[in-house]
């Protein structure tokens, strides 16, 4: 893994578990990655894989009762305790979040100006209105919102404009790291392209690192430097975005790419089955019930992360290490696979 010194964010073995009646749902279960300044990391995977949980976990925005463990280093220092004042002080100032639904993320009773004033003053008490206005208009300009709208109310803006407003709000204090959780899913295609362009250009104006959560691989190829593929609480493949798209190494990434590409070519192709129950996930490799290449070893032992060609990191027995595969473990897991396909029918 890369050197921690220059990284904005360094995540090691992060776990986030939710308590449910049936037991712990391991939504994030041992995730590690690094993020460099200004870098955009795409996070993809089917819904229910733990992407949102990972994003919120990094900001300390989890519901009460969630269990968090692991080491997160931000700008070279360990992240403060979840409910602490120090964490609160980081949010908004150094850590930002952009949500999926722009329509409901602004307080309908507050002017845009009041949102900015509240946010800036939460971190710099006593700053004058005029200075807040100055800083706000600067980000709003980058977002293409005219200064004349500064004192408007949220309901006076369209969905796309509101998302640009929330981005501006997240950026006003120039945070070093932002999580954008499916920021365009609720918007129409034209607006989506606009927002993605803004996010892709962020580093030029703000030098912000971005974790861009999306299920749209097109967005990743357009905007991201690197991509992480998440399945059932783990990052199963991570690497340079173009590299991963050109030669995906994990069967799940391959299936994910195949299902998107085929949307525009042959029509229907999807990964049979659905992401597993995170309270009681499959033993071994969590993808093995749906994996077309599953081997015996996959059903019993979890694969170990391995660095493969081109700096990609993959968790899959296909890439070894051979030495850890027990004798006969390389035999295909045919029966299992047919069963799970039949289950779906």
């Amino acid at each position, binding site marked *: 893994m890369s050197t921690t010194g220059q990284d904005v964010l360094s995540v090691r073995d992060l776990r986030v578990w939710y308590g449910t009646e049936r037991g712990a749902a391991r939504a994030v279960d041992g995730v590690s990655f690094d993020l460099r300044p200004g870098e955009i990391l795409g996070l993809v995977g089917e819904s229910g894989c733990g992407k949102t949980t990972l994003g919120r976990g990094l900001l300390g*925005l989890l519901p009460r009762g969630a269990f968090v463990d692991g080491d997160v280093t931000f700008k070279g220092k360990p992240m403060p305790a979840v409910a602490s004042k120090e964490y609160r002080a980081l949010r*908004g100032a150094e850590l*930002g979040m952009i*949500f999926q639904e722009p329509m409901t*993320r602004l*307080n309908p*009773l507050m002017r845009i100006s009041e949102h900015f004033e*509240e946010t800036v003053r939460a971190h710099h008490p006593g700053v004058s209105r005029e200075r807040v206005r100055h800083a706000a208009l600067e980000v709003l300009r980058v977002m293409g919102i005219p200064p004349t709208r500064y004192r408007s109310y949220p309901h006076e803006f369209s969905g796309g404009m509101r998302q640009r407003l929330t981005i501006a709000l997240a950026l006003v204090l120039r945070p070093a790291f932002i999580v954008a959780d499916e920021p365009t899913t609720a918007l129409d295609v034209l607006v989506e392209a606009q927002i993605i362009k803004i996010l892709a250009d962020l580093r030029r104006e703000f030098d912000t690192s971005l974790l861009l959560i999306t299920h749209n691989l097109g967005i990743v190829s357009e905007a991201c430097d690197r991509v992480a593929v998440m399945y059932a609480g783990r990052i199963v493949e991570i690497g340079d975005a173009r590299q991963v798209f050109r030669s995906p190494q994990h069967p799940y990434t391959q299936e994910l790419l195949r299902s998107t590409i085929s949307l525009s070519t042959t029509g229907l192709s999807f990964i049979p089955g659905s992401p597993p129950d995170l309270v009681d996930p499959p033993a071994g490799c969590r993808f093995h019930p749906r994996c077309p290449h599953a081997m015996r070893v996959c059903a019993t032992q979890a694969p170990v992360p391995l660095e493969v060609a081109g700096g990609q990191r993959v968790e899959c027995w296909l890439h070894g290490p051979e030495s850890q595969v027990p004798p006969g473990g390389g035999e295909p897991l045919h029966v299992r696979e047919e069963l799970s396909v039949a289950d779906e029918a």
Partner: protein
Amino acid sequence: MSTATAPGSLPRYIVQRLLLIIPMVWFILTLVFLLMRVAPGDPVSASVGGRLPEAALDQRREALGLNDPLIQQYWDYLSGVLTLDFGNTITDNTPITQIVKENGGATLTLTISAMLLALVVGLPLGLIAGRYRDTPADGGIRIFGIVTYAAPVFYTGLLVQLLFLNVFSGWPLLGQSTPITEFTVETRTHILLLDAIIAGDGDAVIDVLKHLMLPAVTLGLLICGIFIRLTRVNVLQTLQADYVEAARARGIPERRVVRSHAFRNAMVPVVTIIGLQVALLLSGAVLTEKTFAWPGLGNQLITYIDQRDYAAVQGIITLFAVVVVLISILIDIVIALIDPRVRY
């Protein structure tokens, strides 16, 4: 863009609301008129029949216009209300306006203090219950809210009276003041409390306040339960709102998130409901006044109902209904002032 905020849209909205008063009042007047006419028998023989000779009864009917065609009566009623003439009672031939003048002040004093009490107690309790959901505090407050709302006014009133009879013997349980206060305080506004204050008579003010306390608490508790429940539910909702989470994500301190996002936004529906509570407040006032011999309109209303004085009942009910309409329009305007989304 979805914007259509033409300049001056708020004044236009307010004018629209104010104009709405006309059809609403007209509708209510018509309703009251019809309901009064649906009752069988004629009002005069119902109220004073048997006590006056037939000729006198007929004279009363004639004076009340009961011999006129229905449409004529309807017209007289409407135009009377327009000129603030609500007619005369049948039993004692008093102008309704005079009853309103003499007794309205007491009702106003009672309802306003009960409403203030309900707000001052109900809103904070509702906020606390919502904020600290499922804690013992929440549980206690919810039970308090349910009990106060569900308990009949007569019952609460009696309980309060018994309590004070035993614990603070000598505390006034009935009426609006001692006779001395009533005699010494010069009548100016017909609102005794106000008159006592104007007169600068401290003893009289204290006397009225002491008398006011029990009925105000009784009526206030009734309304308070609703405020508690409503505030709590709305706070629970706003605490879950997306913009509250977004505010947390911007590092807004939790106290401020709760205060200026959750609580403030929860108040919008609560204010709306205050308007609807006015009807309950007035009907509760009728029972409270009866229980505490409070010399207000509600007390008069019950007396006239007992005497089957349709004209008096019609007059007082009309007034109550018009007050309810006016306040609901007023609340609409207040909402528009606090919620920018309303102005369309």
